[in-house]
């Protein structure tokens, strides 16, 4: 068994477990990604409530743990203990299975997300098609949930959401195609659909596709960035769950664990579409300015970022400890937050040690770890920016009316994305 485990760690050329045919490591990756996404969803839940509160000059959750840090855990326990009500008139089986459809679709796409050149479960030849196809299955969960509830608001929410997702998928697909076209600008003239291949094409061409053919890549990215908000049913396009019109839309009748599965699926889908945007336009796992600021010195400076980020988080936690009121009531909270700061500081120290140890030698285990950490860090960092933007949009923009939403989708975004696609093809032919 140790040989089995070491075989993948020692292999000289880095490939994904899927390409190596190693089921053991594929399973390990799947577990790591599942755990990571679940933790990210909890963190995102806390951050969203806090950030929204601060946008509106409120405090947000403050009671459970220091600054409400344990609120997601408390929420999860509450949701699990809550009575699971199935309405009498509902279609029992379909009502039961609907949240699982959305969850499965949202988590299946993570098999091809490229966290690094070898940090993905598998590198499919059809990567981007697979991601778009499977994430479009998620809407089936919403539609079926709305129908199975056998109630008016959920049904209208489901109809809205399916119409909206079908409409925006068109513009989204065309924007993606224009990015895929850019991957074919190499010596052989053959593009690729593989997620890792798309990032490597940006690496070879020395430019992120958002800056390629200057306004064209940016416009395609903009269209994708708008369409992905509609795809994930987030504000300002959250017509499917508009609480002022439809109570809670498709999940009005859901409660307890099943409702939380919908939330988990929604946030997992948000992370997944952000990853598509990052991989296609923002250079995936590449650090900023790899072609301007290159060389071992810059590599070393940028490899300090993961450790420094955790130091920053630890420093924020320490400030929280210092500013906590000196009352015996806050003693346990103070100890907890101090322990949290210590854990963050320890992780930061570990990351810095790895960065320093792996700075020169290219073959040592430390160097491989440093590389892997760099790749995953920059990918996650870019995705995290998108996640914050999702919150920011929600706090800033009022909800669209449904006919306005459709009008923008079909009459503005679709023509623009078609023009961008044709222009990209023309410029690409002229350049090559």
């Amino acid at each position: 068994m140790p040989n089995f485990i070491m075989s993948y760690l020692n292999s000289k050329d880095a490939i994904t477990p899927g390409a190596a045919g190693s089921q053991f490591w594929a399973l390990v990756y799947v577990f790591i990604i599942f755990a990571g996404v679940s933790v990210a969803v909890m963190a995102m839940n806390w951050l969203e409530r806090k950030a929204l509160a601060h946008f509106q000059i409120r405090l947000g959750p403050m009671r459970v743990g220091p600054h409400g840090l344990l609120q997601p855990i408390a929420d999860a326990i509450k949701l699990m203990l809550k009575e699971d009500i199935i309405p009498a008139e509902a279609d029992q089986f379909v009502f039961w299975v609907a949240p699982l459809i959305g969850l499965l679709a949202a988590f299946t796409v993570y098999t091809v997300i490229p966290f690094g050149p070898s940090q993905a479960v598998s590198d499919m030849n059809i990567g981007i098609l697979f991601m778009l196809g499977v994430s479009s299955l998620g809407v089936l969960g919403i539609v079926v949930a709305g129908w199975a509830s056998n109630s008016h608001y959920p049904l209208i929410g489901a109809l809205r959401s399916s119409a909206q997702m079908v409409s925006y998928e068109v513009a989204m697909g065309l924007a993606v195609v224009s990015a895929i076209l850019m991957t074919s600008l190499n010596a052989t003239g053959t593009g690729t659909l593989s997620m890792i291949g798309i990032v490597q094409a940006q690496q070879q061409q020395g430019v992120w596709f958002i800056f390629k053919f200057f306004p064209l890549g940016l416009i395609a990215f903009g269209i994708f960035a708008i369409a992905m908000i509609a795809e994930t049913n987030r504000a300002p396009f959250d017509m499917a769950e508009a609480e002022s019109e439809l109570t809670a839309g498709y999940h009005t009748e859901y409660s307890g664990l099943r409702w939380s599965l919908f939330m988990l699926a929604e946030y997992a889908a948000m992370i997944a579409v952000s990853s598509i945007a990052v991989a296609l336009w923002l250079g995936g796992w590449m650090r900023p300015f790899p072609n301007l600021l290159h060389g071992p010195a810059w590599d070393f400076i940028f490899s300090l970022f993961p450790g420094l980020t955790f130091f920053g988080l630890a420093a924020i936690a320490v400030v929280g400890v210092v500013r906590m009121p000196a009352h015996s009531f806050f003693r346990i909270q103070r100890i907890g937050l101090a322990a949290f700061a210590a854990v963050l500081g320890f992780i930061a120290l570990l990351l810095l040690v790895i960065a320093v140890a792996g700075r020169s030698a290219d073959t040592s285990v430390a160097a491989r770890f440093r590389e892997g950490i760099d790749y995953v860090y920059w990918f996650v960092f870019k995705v995290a920016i998108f996640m914050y933007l999702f919150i920011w949009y929600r706090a800033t923009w009022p909800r669209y009316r449904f006919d306005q939403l459709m009008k923008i989708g079909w009459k503005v975004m679709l023509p623009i994305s078609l023009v961008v696609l044709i222009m990209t093809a023309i410029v690409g032919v002229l350049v090559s």
Partner: protein
Amino acid sequence: MNPALNSGLNSAVNAGMAPVATPCFFYVLAGLAVVSGLLVITRRNAVHSALALIVTLLAVTGLYLMLYAPFVAAVQIFVYAGGIMLLFLFVIMLVNIERSSKDRQFNRMWPVGLAAACALLALFVTAFVKGKALFPDRMISLPESSNTQQIAGMLYGEAGRMGEYTFAFEIASLLLLVAILGAVIMTKKKI
């Protein structure tokens, strides 16, 4: 067999891409497809039928993947399971299921359906029995990594060679465009 393909296949096998537990996966997927296919025609509730049809389509997608046809599999998910079935559900949900499921089900087309099913069964049995004579004795299994490129080469031509199916492909897409325009013109009174 083309030497480039052959070397690609060998390298794929060398890299450990040989299929895993093939018979087991095949029987599970095939069984799933058959059972859910039966559910499609036996359920009285149209939404249940549609859901069973989605399961059938996804099981067939798995079979495509086992045949080293990932592009076809992706298009199957994208177009059928994701797009068309969503529209099916969209329409079915607007029908009053309560009333239609209590209506007497009638169908005068069952003799035709039975004949078609028997013909298809006969075809399958023939293919199964005389398969060795009817089909080439070994399948060209393309390496997974070049499947999409092969399809593109067939459709659009590659390396200075005209594609074999370019005309048919373009005509088919024109036909779809005409159908879309026709649908728009028939439903919209004023454009």
